């Protein structure tokens, strides 16, 4: 081969891997561009044929349908599709938030129970995990909603009559606290009490490090969080009135209503996700080598100290990434609300709004954007936390 000016032997252009790579990529992009053009042309034609408008203007149109649970102001007559969007999103966030908290609590309990020295407890936890993980979530939701909650009695035969709350197939009704003047001070006292407790914790920690002495924390915390607001309550003379749910002929008036749809979705999501979280917790705790426990024990640390100072700091590094994955799954699974009629974001927006306006593309794009945003935010938070707690390597 004759060397060319750059000093490398000249090969046939077609055999040069760099050239081929470029050709492949150009072909790929061309293919995608062609497909995209065809799709766009078809979309325009089909939309025109079905007389569906385009654009996001529909968000300002009046919705005209009712929503059974709204955390913000919403009126059937005047609220727009845009408002319906926010109502749905808030409902989703409510279920997701509560679901994550409760599932974490339950999941940790079961995960720790899986490692208990008690054979019965260990195997019951194992049974729970195996059964729940192998039955589809949709089936579980339908079961809770249709077989359990629908089986509650009619209004006239509500449970707990006379106790201040009512349970029937329309939901759970609890007394609603209506705050009179002065209640603001009580709330302020409560917030101050909580803040002071955290402050006390920091002070106790510093004192421990400097002098090795332990400061009692439990009693002062109780005094601050409960005692302080109570004292302020009596001093200020605030009034709190409870509005009890009243049994009417066809419905219940007054009180706070918890929809059976909400309860079923929350219940189902928590029970399902807790089974997966339990496995994550168990794997994390098992990942701490036995030698760590032995070394800590050999140094004279007691079981609680070993747990707090040695096991949990190491286990949490293994637990947090897959735990975040489970949180993401819970957020995505909340979309199954459609099956039981809970007015979450998908049910309102991708369901009703899409059906009424027919503007599939815009609605789907917005839906995808919302979920992608939620996923990205959660993943970014996890990555940041992971980087912060990583062990420095050699």
């Amino acid at each position: 081969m004759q060397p060319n000016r750059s000093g490398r032997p000249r090969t046939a252009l077609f055999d040069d891997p760099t050239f081929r790579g470029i050709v492949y990529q150009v072909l790929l992009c061309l293919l995608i561009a062609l497909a995209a053009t065809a799709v766009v042309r078809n979309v325009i034609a089909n939309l025109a044929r079905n007389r569906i408008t385009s654009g996001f203007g529909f968000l300002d149109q009046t919705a005209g349908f009712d929503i059974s649970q709204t955390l913000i102001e919403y009126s059937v007559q005047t609220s727009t599709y845009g408002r319906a969007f926010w109502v749905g999103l808030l409902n989703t966030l409510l279920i997701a938030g509560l679901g994550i908290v409760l599932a974490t609590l339950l999941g940790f309990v079961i995960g720790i129970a899986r490692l208990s020295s008690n054979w019965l407890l260990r195997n019951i936890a194992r049974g729970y995990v195996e059964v729940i993980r192998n039955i589809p979530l949709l089936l579980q939701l339908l079961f809770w909603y249709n077989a359990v909650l629908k089986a509650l009695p009619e209004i006239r035969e509500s449970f707990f009559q006379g106790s201040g709350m009512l349970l029937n197939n329309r939901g759970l009704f609890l007394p609603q606290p209506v705050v009179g003047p002065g209640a603001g001070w009580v709330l302020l006292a409560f917030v101050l009490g909580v803040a002071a407790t955290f402050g006390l914790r920091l002070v106790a920690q510093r004192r421990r490090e400097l002098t090795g002495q332990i400061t009692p924390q439990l009693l002062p915390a109780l005094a601050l969080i409960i005692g302080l607001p109570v004292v302020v309550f009596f001093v200020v003379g605030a009034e709190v009135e409870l509005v009890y749910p009243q049994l009417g002929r066809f419905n219940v008036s007054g009180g706070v209503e918890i929809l059976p749809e909400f309860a079923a979705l929350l219940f189902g999501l928590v029970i399902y996700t807790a089974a997966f979280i339990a496995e994550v917790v168990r794997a994390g705790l098992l990942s701490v080598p036995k030698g760590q426990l032995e070394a800590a024990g050999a140094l004279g640390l007691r079981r609680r100290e070993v747990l707090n100072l040695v096991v949990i700091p190491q286990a949490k590094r293994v637990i947090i990434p897959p735990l975040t994955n489970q949180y993401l799954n819970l957020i995505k699974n909340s979309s199954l609300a459609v099956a039981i009629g809970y007015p979450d974001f998908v049910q309102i927006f991708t369901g009703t709004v899409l059906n009424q306006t027919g503007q599939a593309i815009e609605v789907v794009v917005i839906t995808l954007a919302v979920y992608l945003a939620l996923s990205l935010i959660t993943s970014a938070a996890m990555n940041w936390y992971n980087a912060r707690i990583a062990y420095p390597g050699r």
Partner: protein
Amino acid sequence: MNQQPGGVSEGSAQRGGFAVEINGLYKWFGTFQVLSDINLKVRNGERVVICGPSGSGKSTLIRCINALEDYQRGEVVVEGVPLTHNLKRIDEIRREIGMVFQQFNLFPHLTVLENCTLAPIYVRKMPKSDAERIARKYLDRVRIPEQADKYPGQLSGGQQQRVAIARALCMSPKIMMFDEPTSSLDPEMVKEVLDTMVELAQEGMTMLVVTHEMGFARQVANRMVFMDAGQILEINTPAAFFSNPQHERTRAFLSQILKNA
């Protein structure tokens, strides 16, 4: 409250008590017998080296002494304190025994200094500044004071094991136990750890060492204990042990191990 670090404990020597006393110890793992008829009395300031083929129960034995393993029959007494299932007793005993493991078992999420100050702060309730002062002193003793703010993952194996020794010493134990401390180390790092242990011995620390390092044993041990299949077969001075082993199993073992040394 604060103990004198290291040194011969004059107190119990005058009382005539032993640092560690084991009488008629038997241990089963399920139906499998792991230790039988273990009798051993270790005096303060004495260095005892335990050797034997793998599976002979040497590690299990010393782990019974600080309650890392449980046993079914017999008694263990440490510095006059009998070892029972009572958690307070176990804590008391563990405060007086320092242990160094084959796998180092340093806490990866804490710096070298924090590894050493953890127990003094939380178990001996020392103020942090005192604990750090003592920790730096021992890190200096094991010749790695400059590593105090590094994490275990950043150190070599030999350095990690020396940190483990310093960590145990920070609790001012009366007895130090070593469970095959050099078995996981690259050959060139074995010497630095053994040198540290020899210095410790020369300062008069009571030591129980499970090891295959016969050179070290010859140099430092007051007595050699040979175990096989869960039983102690022979106890003797190093001189007698190596030159004239009495039990035929001891002879077989020594011929193997010294042939390949």
